[in-house]
């Protein structure tokens, strides 16, 4: 159902009446709002506790964390694939390399047990 002309005019008149409403903010309202502004700035959010932020600060900031990370990665890489210079340095330092076969005796023990059985 469409609006009748009179209903349309009534609404237009009511809207015009509303648009004509232009209240002036009272001094009291402005004072309350400015008080809020002062209070809102005074209340700063509490810093959130972060384990990583605490750790980072403890070791000396991001540069130190970067150095630690690089050292860790280098250590892992040397463990997997040590450069020849590291291997020769180790043999120079220790003097000789010793190979220990942990399973050799055990294997013969099992072999004998098998024969005896």
């Amino acid at each position, binding site marked *: 159902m469409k609006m009748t002309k*009179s209903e349309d*005019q009534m609404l237009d008149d*009511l809207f015009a*009446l509303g648009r004509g409403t232009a*209240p002036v*903010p009272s001094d009291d309202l402005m004072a309350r*709002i400015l008080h809020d502004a002062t209070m809102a*700035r005074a209340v700063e959010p509490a810093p959130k506790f972060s384990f990583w932020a605490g750790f980072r600060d403890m070791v000396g900031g991001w540069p130190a964390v970067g150095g630690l990370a690089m050292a860790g990665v280098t250590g892992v890489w040397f463990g997997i694939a040590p450069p020849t210079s590291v291997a020769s340095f180790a043999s120079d330092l220790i003097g000789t390399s010793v190979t220990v076969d942990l399973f050799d005796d055990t294997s013969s023990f099992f072999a004998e047990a098998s024969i005896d059985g």
Partner: protein
Amino acid sequence: MNARLGSWRDAPDYAVLLAYANGDEEAARVLSLRLVPRVLAQATRMLADQAEAEDVAQEAMMKLWEIAAEWRQGEAQVSTWLYRVVANLCTDRLRKRRGVSLDQIAEPTDPQMSATAQMQETSRLTALANALAQLPDRQAQAVSLRHLEGLTNPEIAQIMDISVRSVESLTARGKKALADILAARKAELGYEDDKI
């Protein structure tokens, strides 16, 4: 202080808000003088209740102070953001009026008008606000922004974060629903066919 206010004259709202967030004492005053009259007017037009409108204005400005430090330039204009906040706060309050008698009339406030004229104007504005309260929130917001604030459909689309087509649909349905609600009170509000 006037010299200080003058120095802010051409600064956009977000720049003054940033100054407030950085501790400038005058920035809050500048922003309040600039924004509160419009915020209060929007709330008064939607609610037709001075005390409630003042509460909404204070609440909306409080939200602005709280968000100042996190305000990201370019995301939205301060005025657009405030239109949205005030519209939401007003529909929250209008929702509580549902079920309240449409006859409930606020106290007249303008001492310059004759008592009869003032009573009629107040009753009309209150009837409009109470009829808005009967609409779904989005319809009430779209209708008030279009017909009470006089904004364009693209502006309303930006404020409500919807398409222009949706704004057109909401305002058309909202206006029709308002007419239906108010039709029964036409004579009572002084809108008999020959008196409009």
